[in-house]
């Protein structure tokens, strides 16, 4: 086996060391290339998952509403009959939310809306509740919270160990009168609602927020039902 004759390879003169500007430009371009490639990957997955996510979000909303308002209490298209609430400090809401109006044969049936308790043990507790046109609270549920697992999280019906009568269901069907408004507190504060030992703060936060929200809705019920769908709620000047 004979190797072909090779001309001696001339050694090129060493290039001058690149300047700082060149290095940073080159590095930046490399980084940019990687950024572009991986942003494209994320964008692709986003496109792929978006329809599924939208569908599940809508579905979750329907399910959440069904938790607080039985479907046989209304016959309108609830998600269409909505008005926008601006940030409402009275409800503990720092961002706009949506309020849904349930009607049965054109008669007001219930208001479904969100509220938030700012004073949970570990921050905000978000609630959804339905207030029936006769002033009764249909039900209230916790939608988001960061209460201590195994201790304060019984306010969430899904986490409550008592599956027959979760703590949060004691509000269902109650109104200002049963008990009277000044008794809408946890027992420890002189009210009628149970709290669980060791986690009163969570129960108190939910109870007080529910009471506030119920009062808020009752005071404005007529105006809230009267507003055309899709419009923005404005607190009337007093």
């Amino acid at each position: 086996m004979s190797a072909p004759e090779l001309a001696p390879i001339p050694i090129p003169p060493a290039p001058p060391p690149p300047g700082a500007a060149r290095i940073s430009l080159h590095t930046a371009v490399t980084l940019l290339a990687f950024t572009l490639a991986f942003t494209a990957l994320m964008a692709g997955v986003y496109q792929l998952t978006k329809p599924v996510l939208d569908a599940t979000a809508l579905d979750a909303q329907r399910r959440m509403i069904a938790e607080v308002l039985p479907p046989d209490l209304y016959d309108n298209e609830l998600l269409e009959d909505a008005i926008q609430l601006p940030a409402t400090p009275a409800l503990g809401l720092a961002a706009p939310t949506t309020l849904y109006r349930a009607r049965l044969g054109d008669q007001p049936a219930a208001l479904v809306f969100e509220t938030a308790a700012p004073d949970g043990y570990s921050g905000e507790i978000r609630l959804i509740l339905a207030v029936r046109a006769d002033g009764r609270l249909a039900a209230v549920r916790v939608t988001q919270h960061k209460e201590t697992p195994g201790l304060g999280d019984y306010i969430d019906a899904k986490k409550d160990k008592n599956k027959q009568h979760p703590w949060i269901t004691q509000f269902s069907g109650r109104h200002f009168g049963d008990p009277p408004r000044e008794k809408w507190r946890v027992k420890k504060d002189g009210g009628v609602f149970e709290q669980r030992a060791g986690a009163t703060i969570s129960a108190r936060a939910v109870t007080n927020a529910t009471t506030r929200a119920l009062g808020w809705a009752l005071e404005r019920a007529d105006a809230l039902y009267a507003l055309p769908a899709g419009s923005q709620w404005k607190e009337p000047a007093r």
Partner: protein
Amino acid sequence: MSQLRAITHNGLWNQNPVLGQMLGLCSLLAISTSAVNAVSLGLATILVMAMANLIVSLLRGFIPHEIRIPIFILIIASLVTVVDMAMNAWLHDLYLVLGIFIPLIVVNCIVLARVEAFAAKNSAGLAAFDGVMMGIGFVWVIGLLGAIREFIGQGTLLAGIDMIVPGMQAIQVLPEDYPGFLVAILPPGAFFVLGLLIAGRNWLDHRANERAKARLLAAQQSIPAGA
């Protein structure tokens, strides 16, 4: 083959992410309040680690050494985002439980550590295998930690399993009226239990060493003098 065995042994025991390298404690402490939470996040971590190791290993020829850290972080963060979106879309119930913890995987330093220490220097297959094994090493420890904390803190095991396997029930190990032991659920409890686990591992290692030494000594003594 022996290489695969070494990777497995490193991941599961020797350089176990938690017990050996003590990395990724941030997410470990945050979510090991129950066995189901812990194992579920661990599974997502396995997925991210395997993918990150695989991709970094495949691209290692293109990544300039000087800027490898930002690129590794970029890759890991993108993968976590992808896993986050995919889980939200296709494993929604699990996502509802784990959603807030998934972003924690980005800052789980065990992922970056394996990418830097292993994937950047090894072939794609080995790198992916290392990711899986390190991930399993993470899962078994975090799962055990979660189970112990849940058992002491709440008296149950596998609470919340119905969110992953519908119809399955949590096991009430201690009597219904067990008052719970809050410290186990709170972050200090995680440190206590983790400390005990590490002590246990060190004890097992120490015992194995002593036995090996004793065997060696016995073997030496049984050799006749002058042989």
